[in-house]
């Protein structure tokens, strides 16, 4: 066989598995499904008649379902549209972990690096490692509650009053409540210390554009906004904004183990870390629906003798979750990515119920 033919055959062979995949490169393809009763039931749950006076009940702003790289379901509630960069709230934490994943792949830090190596004010907490922050296990004495304890809420003080000028320094000023790495305690402060650590990891001026150059531009995300505090630290805990379609790109990246087209953007080992339950996590029997903390992502894992947090959803599902009902769900076995933006004010929304209906409508293998 002439060499040229061999080469062509080789190219065809190597293109084989990729050619079968659909990617939103450059744009999403959209094939809305027929409105079956299961599809209707999903919309009925996500978009009941909206009460803007009492603000009660499930109040979705956007619902997007992607099946194996193709949009199969997309709906918005005014004023949110397909062009709205919606506030992600704490979904930002998981997005920032994906930004850090690129830095990790570039060899800029290790999980067992002391935080102080990258963020000097943590010299006050020399035993805290980057991996502890990623598991929300710094052990710092942090009060995350906001709506029920606004006076003493660390997160309210961080975002709006005493901590807002330098959120990581505010976090570092807290004392210790537990030994690092021994105890899960959800903390937006831990996430913002990761934000501040990125500065030294990649240096200026690269840092101020890093989320775009590292993650958003390679994924073709054009809508992303990421607000910073007055010290220039990205508010990794709370303040990323993306359209639903752009957020789904990060979901597809995660569904495909960090690969985007032919490029391994996040090391597969990084995604595996994101999806590994924090070893010392103990489920709270009073809160059986609480997802399990992984590496800045949330898992539907079965831990100890607790049931899966979302019983009607496969244990391999994982998610980025935020205040007032924001969610990016990834169901790798079913090749599903679900984005939900919302303005839920009363806590009646259930992840399990939405995903159960997504699975009924779109769950079977293609």
């Amino acid at each position: 066989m002439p060499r040229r033919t061999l080469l062509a055959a080789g190219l065809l062979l190597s293109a084989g598995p990729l050619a079968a995949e659909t990617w939103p490169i450059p744009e999403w393809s959209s094939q809305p499904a027929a409105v079956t009763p299961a599809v209707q039931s999903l919309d009925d749950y996500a978009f009941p008649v909206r009460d803007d006076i009492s603000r009660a009940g499930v109040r979705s702003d956007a619902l997007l379902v992607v099946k194996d790289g193709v949009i199969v379901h997309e709906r918005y509630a005014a004023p949110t549209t397909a062009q709205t960069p919606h506030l992600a709230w704490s979904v930002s934490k998981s997005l920032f972990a994906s930004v850090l994943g690129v830095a990790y792949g570039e060899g800029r830090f290790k999980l067992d690096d002391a935080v102080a190596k990258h963020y000097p004010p943590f010299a006050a907490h020399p035993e805290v490692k980057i991996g502890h922050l990623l598991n929300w296990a710094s052990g710092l004495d942090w009060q995350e509650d906001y709506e029920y304890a606004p006076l003493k809420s660390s997160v309210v003080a961080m975002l709006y009053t005493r901590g807002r000028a330098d959120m990581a320094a505010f976090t570092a000023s807290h004392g210790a409540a537990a030994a690092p790495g021994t105890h899960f305690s959800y903390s937006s402060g831990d996430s913002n210390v990761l934000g501040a650590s990125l500065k030294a990891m990649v240096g200026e001026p690269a840092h101020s554009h890093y989320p775009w150059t590292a993650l958003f531009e390679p994924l073709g995300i054009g809508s992303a906004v990421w607000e910073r505090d007055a010290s220039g630290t990205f508010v990794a805990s709370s303040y990323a904004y993306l359209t639903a379609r752009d957020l789904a790109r990060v979901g597809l990246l995660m569904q495909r183990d960090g690969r985007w087209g032919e490029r391994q953007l996040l090391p597969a080992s990084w995604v595996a870390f994101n999806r590994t339950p924090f070893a010392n996590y103990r489920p709270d029997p009073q809160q059986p629906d609480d997802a399990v903390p992984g590496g800045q992502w949330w898992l539907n894992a079965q831990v100890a003798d607790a049931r899966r947090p979302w019983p009607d959803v496969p244990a391999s599902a994982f998610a980025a979750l935020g205040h007032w009902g924001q969610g990016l769900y990834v169901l790798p076995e079913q090749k599903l990515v679900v984005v939900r933006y919302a303005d839920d004010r009363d806590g009646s929304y259930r992840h399990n119920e939405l995903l159960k209906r997504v699975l009924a409508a779109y769950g079977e293998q293609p």
Partner: protein
Amino acid sequence: MIRRRPLLSVSLALLAGLILLAWSNRVHLAAFPGIIGAYSAKEYCSCRYVSGNPAEYCAGYVEQYLPLGALHDDAERKRVTAEGLGSRQTAAWLGERHGCQLQSQADPL
């Protein structure tokens, strides 16, 4: 004293308790009045100038149980000033990628 003036004694004890409680929470209490203005200014600014939602929607979106004294949106400069519990706070839109940020000095209303 306690037997002769039980009401006064209890009131004094309560007052002392309150003062102690306030003292132990003085850092939190001093910051508290700033929350409502800062929250409203920042989240209105982002709702309006980052997400691009209509002004009327954003005013409703930031509404809380505590009343807001004033909310001023300087649309030309994309600066939002809110006042609540006697504390005035300003958030400013800084640019396409960087959205809104609370300012160390509030604008005059």
